[in-house]
């Protein structure tokens, strides 16, 4: 089992993540990329800015990765979250897992993403084309 967890200000190299997860013991690799959407509902996004409480974010990502690994038989896993300013189309997060079987790889990757969205201390601020900025803090 190999594992890489990273917060970064650089663009995310998803090709390298997939190659790192490739292994003869896996029949399935699933890569998820979260990308910045230009339109959400009726709101337009000029750019997003991501901020993290890095030490706790890294620890929490590691716990999520470890829990998923034992639950889904993950062979290799990489999670990279980008921080700083991102424009529409850019990748904010990438999660890549390899598993012996495909149902597990899909379930693992999706559950990891759900957990990240719930508990990892990372926040985004949306800036509209009019220059209005709002930190996003979900209410549920």
């Amino acid at each position, binding site marked *: 089992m190999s594992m890489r967890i990273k917060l970064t200000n650089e663009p995310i190299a998803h090709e390298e993540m997939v190659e790192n997860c490739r292994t003869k013991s896996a029949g399935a690799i699933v890569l998820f990329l*979260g990308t910045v959407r230009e339109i959400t509902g009726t709101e337009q996004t000029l750019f997003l800015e*991501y*901020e*993290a*409480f890095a*030490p*706790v*974010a890294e*620890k*929490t990502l590691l716990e999520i990765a470890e829990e998923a690994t034992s639950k889904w038989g993950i062979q290799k896993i990489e999670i990279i*979250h980008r921080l700083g300013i991102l424009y529409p189309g850019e990748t*904010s*997060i990438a999660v890549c897992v390899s598993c012996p079987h495909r149902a597990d790889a899909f379930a693992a990757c999706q559950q990891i*993403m759900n957990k*990240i*969205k*719930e*508990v*990892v*201390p*990372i*926040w*985004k*601020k949306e800036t509209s084309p009019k220059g209005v900025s709002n*930190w*996003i*803090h*979900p*209410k549920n």
Partner: protein
Amino acid sequence: MIKISVVFFAGARDIVGQNRLEMQIPALTSIAKLRALLIEKFPQLESLATRAAFAVNEILVLTDTLLVENDEVAFLPAVSGG
């Protein structure tokens, strides 16, 4: 009284107007009590505070955790990463 610091992120930092706040509080104040003190000091923080998580010295804690001298508390509003 003990001295602690509280660090704020995202929307909470914007409301408080700074990254870090040094505070004098009674020894063994709980996180829940600290949260009430913060809302008293910054009423606009209330909505974020009710859904916030807290870390002490970089470890996530429950709100019944008691604070001691030099603790660094992180006020973590509802997250929106990913």
